[in-house]
């Protein structure tokens, strides 16, 4: 007896966001899903999720050898790093992460950050994410300058939180960028941040949501279930939760000991970390994610193949 096709249908839709403008040679549109990832009808699964490869503003000091070796000698040259990420590893977006401005990690100033931003923008044609250090005080001082340097490029700026959203929201509004609204594995706060930001006049259609990601073994299932609930809220018509979702798999994976440790009894270190990263990314993608931040090129290749298998090959 043939089984009837099961197709979920929903009244809502994830917002579409088109990143990239100005001197960008490419635009990237994310979102648009009208169903869950395996909801049955491939024509309404929305835009292909995209991969943003991390580029740090200052050479990382604590990266695992397996990860650092994949990049060779570009880690102290963000422009060359970005170029490699796009041209060799197939990044859809470059995520320029300003770790170096953090008071505990170099305390670089706005002038350096603006210079790095300009170099990276000049080196690649894909849209760019500009992501602060996590130090509210330093981000509020530096990110507006960085944003201004990228005016017109329609970048994705990150991140605003419930306790620190005014400065960067005003900046995104002034410079015409998109904004990442962050919540600490908390769907209620996620909604609240969206309300606070939209109250300042930033359209809900300019937002991307970020729940602090957990990697495999470190809370991945919490991130999964919250992202899944966000997606179901969007699909059932909650306009305040209809923003596309970004998650940060690269950073979270490469700080856990299972991906870094040089312990042969845990298996080949050259494969272990990339597998950890790919497994986390593929799992989270099924909860409804539109941008994945990643680091290791071998993991990126696996995840791109997975995305092709579900959403169809890139055009």
């Amino acid at each position, binding site marked *: 007896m043939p089984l009837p096709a099961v197709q979920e249908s929903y009244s809502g839709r994830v917002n579409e966001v088109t990143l990239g403008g100005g001197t960008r040679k490419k635009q990237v549109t994310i979102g648009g899903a009208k169903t869950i990832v395996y909801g049955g009808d491939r024509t309404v699964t929305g835009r292909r999720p995209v991969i943003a490869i991390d580029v740090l503003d200052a050479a990382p000091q604590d990266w695992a050898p397996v990860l650092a070796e994949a990049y060779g000698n570009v880690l102290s040259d963000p422009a060359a790093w970005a170029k490699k990420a796009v041209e060799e590893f197939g990044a859809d977006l470059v995520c320029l992460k300003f770790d170096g401005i953090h008071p505990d990690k170099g305390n670089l100033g706005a002038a350096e950050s603006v210079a790095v931003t300009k170099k990276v923008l000049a080196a690649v044609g894909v849209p760019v994410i500009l992501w602060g250090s996590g130090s509210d005080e330093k981000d509020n001082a530096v990110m507006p300058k960085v944003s201004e340097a990228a005016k017109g490029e329609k970048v994705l700026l990150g991140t605003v939180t419930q306790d620190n959203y005014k400065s960067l929201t005003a900046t995104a509004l002034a410079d015409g960028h998109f904004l990442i609204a962050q919540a600490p594995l908390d*769907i*209620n*706060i996620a*909604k*609240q941040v969206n*309300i*606070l930001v*939209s109250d300042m006049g930033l359209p809900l259609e300019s937002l991307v949501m970020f729940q602090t990601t957990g990697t495999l073994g470190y809370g991945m299932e919490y991130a999964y279930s919250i992202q899944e*609930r966000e997606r179901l*809220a969007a699909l059932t*018509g*909650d*306009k*305040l*939760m209809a923003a596309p979702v970004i998650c940060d798999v690269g950073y979270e994976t490469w700080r856990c000991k299972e991906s870094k440790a040089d312990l042969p009894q845990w298996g080949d270190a050259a494969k272990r970390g990339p597998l950890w990263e790919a497994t986390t990314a593929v799992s989270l993608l099924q909860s409804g994610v539109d941008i994945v931040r990643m680091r290791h090129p071998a993991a990126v290749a696996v995840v791109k193949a997975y995305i092709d298998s579900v959403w169809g090959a890139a055009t």
Partner: protein
Amino acid sequence: MIAIGERINGQFTDVKQAIADHDPAAIISLAKRQAEAGAAYLDINVGTAAADQEGTIKWLVEVAQKAVPTPLCLDSQKPQVIKAGLSVCDTARGVLLNSTPLNKKSDPDVLAKYAEMAQSSGGSLIALTMDREGVPQSTDRRVEMAAEILTKCMEIGITPERLFIDPIILPVNVPGAQSQPTNIMAAIDQIRLMSDPPPHITMGLSNVSQGTTERSLINRTFLAMAMAHGADSAIVDVLDDTLVDLVATVEMLMNKQIYSDSFLKAYRSVAGAMH
């Protein structure tokens, strides 16, 4: 919740006056205020304000739909008045016909007439669990009538998503009617099991408190109770802020809206857009 804004009704003195003066300003204002407050539909009822009910409903429809994009709920017990309203109504945005009993002594086929108008306009229909004998007292009879209504509507092509069952709430102070709220909630429980998805459940909320003291409190409390049993629509005064707060809170407590610290505001910002 699918809130049907009740204020454009000739029984209210401001609307009656606007109809008498043929003055659109009051109607436009009510349409805008109710739409902003999150009404999913605006009820349009001529009431007893005009002898020419068909001409008057046309005028009200034209004024209201020009003022706001919200779909309308055409409210009359006379099919020809609904028909007149439909003739000028922008049904592309949706329309709700309000309302028909299962049957009437004077018109045994009244349900089919309303259902066919709903079907041909692509709209939705409110049907009351009452018949030629009047409003039933028991739970069972309400459920039985709802089943008959659902079947007849589906035969005509109206799917449960487009059908609103009104189990009819009587004033609680009418002799013998104090058991009705409980019976209605039991009926709602059963009606919602009849199909998947179930038909919507709506009610003319303010009826429950006719002639009582503490009208607002009774209305609000009963709405919360009925929503907990699955009522997902009501004909209400959406300009009553406390009532809207209550609906937002019930939906949040029932896990239909994700909690946020600004959940009351969040509900208002999306309420009208959610349906």
